[in-house]
């Protein structure tokens, strides 16, 4: 067995993210993922190339999308001898695929791999009513005319109402926004600071587009060449006019502006060993140093649904002998502005450190000028499984641009919260 090595992030590709029922209203997950893989192949000259593996996934999946990623590979210009598998870990899917592929590269099991994610809220799987499904299954299994007639007697008019996927936690019945509102209240996250964070996200994303930063990260799709949700001219004043949509009464601060909208899109990251990259004359933007996944008990315990990264990051820092201040870039996924702000407040809070993290001192404050400098989900939108790939490729390029810092390699931290009380975090090092 070879010694472990750090997997290289070579580059990425995504399609611009579209608002649900917008530019990609008629595109399926398979369409978007295939287009994204093709864009990646074109950028790196991979047409006909056998890649070690492609790991991908979607949060909202049709039953027909069994082995979605493999089907996308077969429909793409990558060699059909490229294996693929699906991963599903809510909004953590995209980053988790990158970790899985990077680990195989680190172990020497593969030399190259693609981590991908896709989601559509426009082409969401609407299923048969559960009652109707049971009747039909019984009918299918019936062996005699009598049994068939008996099964058909189970039909009721109400069964015509389909099962629509809901953006709600199965165990609490609360939507993700309602959960986030509880956390915002707990950490006293104000309306204005949420709106400020939102404006920064839009401005940073617009500026990154304007300077050509995304020229080699994004490939236009179906007529869209920038993220549809991007509002370069938004302001705190404009956002202040929006009515809260999550939470109740005086304490309600979360609006459609400072929350991510339902979004369609896909993203992919190309990873490989340094040797593979060199053989293919491809750049190494960064290395994936380490990753950690945490989960919290948001059902019966006292933790919020989207607070698992609060635990994952300190564990990851400790294992790597780093402190929260040791980073040049922080990519904290903006599910909601309040989620990012609550996360930062918790890391600054001595009581939280002592009681919940079991640490003597809090992680401390971060330099906000290093946070989501090329925009994040509030501006791009958030096609659940695609967000991880977007962030990994964006951060890798930022780190590569930054070069070394005071004799050491530039460093970036990724933190992504996910439904089900999970969170995936990772450290990237610039090259």
């Amino acid at each position, binding site marked *: 067995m070879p010694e472990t090595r750090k997997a290289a992030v070579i580059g990425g590709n995504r399609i611009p993210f579209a608002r649900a029922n917008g530019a990609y209203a008629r595109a399926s997950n398979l369409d978007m993922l295939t287009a994204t893989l093709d*864009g990646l192949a074109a*950028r790196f000259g991979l*047409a006909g190339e056998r890649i070690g593996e492609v790991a991908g996934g979607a949060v909202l999946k049709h039953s027909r999308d069994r082995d979605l990623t493999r089907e996308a590979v077969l429909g793409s210009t990558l060699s059909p001898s490229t294996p693929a598998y699906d991963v599903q870990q809510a909004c953590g899917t995209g980053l988790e695929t990158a970790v899985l592929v990077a680990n195989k590269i680190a172990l020497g099991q593969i030399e190259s791999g693609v981590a991908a994610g896709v989601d559509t809220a426009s082409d969401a799987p609407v299923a048969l009513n559960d009652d109707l499904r049971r009747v039909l299954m019984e009918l299918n299994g019936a062996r005699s005319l009598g049994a068939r007639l008996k099964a058909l007697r189970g039909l009721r008019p109400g069964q015509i109402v389909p099962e629509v996927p809901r953006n709600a936690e199965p165990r609490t019945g609360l939507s993700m926004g309602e959960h986030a509102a509880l956390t915002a209240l707990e950490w006293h996250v104000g309306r204005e600071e949420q709106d400020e964070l939102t404006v920064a996200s839009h401005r940073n994303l617009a500026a990154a587009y304007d300077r050509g930063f995304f*020229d080699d990260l*994004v490939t*236009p799709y179906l007529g869209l060449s920038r993220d549809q949700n991007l509002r370069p001219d938004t302001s705190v004043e404009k956002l202040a006019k929006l009515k809260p949509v999550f939470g109740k009464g005086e304490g309600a601060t979360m609006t459609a502006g400072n929350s991510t909208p339902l979004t369609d899109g896909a993203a992919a990251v190309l990873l490989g060993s340094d040797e593979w990259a060199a053989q293919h004359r491809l750049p190494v933007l960064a290395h994936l140093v380490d990753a950690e996944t945490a989960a919290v008990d948001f059902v019966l315990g006292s933790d919020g649904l989207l607070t698992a990264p609060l635990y994952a990051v300190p564990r990851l820092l400790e294992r790597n002998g780093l402190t929260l201040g040791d980073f040049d870039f922080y990519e904290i996924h903006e599910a909601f502005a309040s989620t990012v702000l609550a996360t930062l407040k918790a890391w600054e809070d001595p009581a939280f450190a002592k009681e919940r993290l079991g640490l003597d001192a809090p992680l401390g404050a971060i330099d906000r000028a290093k946070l989501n400098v090329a925009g994040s989900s509030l501006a791009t939108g958030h096609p659940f499984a695609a967000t991880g790939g977007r962030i990994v490729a964006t951060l890798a390029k930022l780190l590569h641009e930054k070069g070394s810092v005071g004799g050491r390699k530039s460093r970036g931290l990724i933190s992504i919260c996910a439904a089900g009380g999970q969170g995936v975090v990772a450290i990237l090092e610039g090259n």
Partner: protein
Amino acid sequence: MSNDTLRDLSQNQLVRRLGVPRIPVLRRYAPGQPLLDGPALVGAVGAGRYAEQIRALLKDADIADAAGDGTVAAAVLDATGVRTLDDLAAVREFLTPAVRRLAPSGRLLLLGPEPDAGDVEAAAAAQALDGLVRSAAKEVRAGATANLLVVHPDAPPAATDSAVRFFLSARSAYVDGQVVRVGVPVGPAQDPIGMDAPDEVVRPLAGRVAVVTGAARGIGAAIADTLARDGATVVAVDVPAAGESLSRVANRVGGTALQLDITTPDAADRLLAHVRERHGRLDVVVHNAGITRDKLLANMDADRWDAVLAVNLRAQLAINEALLADDLLSDTGRIVCIASTSGIAGNRGQTNYAASKAGVIGMVRALAPRFAERGVTVNAVAPGFIETEMTGKMPLGTREAGRRINSLRQGGLPVDVAETVGWLAEAETGGVTGQVVRVCGQSILGA
């Protein structure tokens, strides 16, 4: 079916009986195709040095010598020895029976001398060939063409090979009535990287790296396809907004897509850095990216003017400047700039476009001597009426007129432009530089 319905209909005898002339279906190149579909007639007038070379080239290509009567696929005359009007009469003597025997999509190719300023009659006779060939091009029928190579007295016989091969082959289907100068090659006649390739004639660009701007669609996409077919690794460049079709082209040709707005100040640096990192060499640069913003001069605003000049000319100047200052371009480097017959003849509503394209021609002529000592050639290809998405949207009347006012009575295809670019991109075409080759079927515009 092509999008030229009249041409398709005119293949039908009944339609022709109504008085519609047959619009020829041109012979076009496909890999593995013989150089010519029949025998060739080769002659010489005076002390020509090239006839033997051409006979050897044809023999290599398994093309029979046209003995006796019967049709000929090509008639090639080495008229480089023409110095007097009597010599000129001998040219006529060769051509008259040859033209009668010329097959459909046949080739009339003359090699003439450069006018000798020291000998008035020789200069007159040399120039006379120009008028003769251009007129012959208008007379030959059924998709046949006539072209003239003006050969520099110091050019070694082998220097003409690539031009002779191109003008005889189906690759020059829509190049008609053209005069191209062939000089002493500016550098090595072969790219060492392609020497090991067993089929250098079939894949003349094997091992070479080519950048094509504006490659997402139309003529640019055809150029990417053709260069890749001939063996080149293609870096397909277009504006980020065209990225979706660009990636399709790049994947189709097994190349790479580079989304880059060539008008940004750092575009040349980014382009060169990208090619250096990803390929480590550069052999061919095709400046194809171009836009139109038509308006009559009286209504021409600064935005339309600036936008067209920025893409069509300013960006090329900047990239060429960077190529001059850099050593990335190999010693068989080839720069090919897409101009336009609008830049030669002018076109109503296109003062900005025609200015930019004429500017490209001026740029090419000024750059050629600067690059020559490095073995690099710089040429322009000027398309005439080409059947593209853009011309497909023209009003029917304008489109029909544009299509028919040339000796081949039809529009060209994007691949016709691409084949000419491919020929100029070959290491073997080192004797052709500072030239403007029109791909226009001998359009009456700018003739």
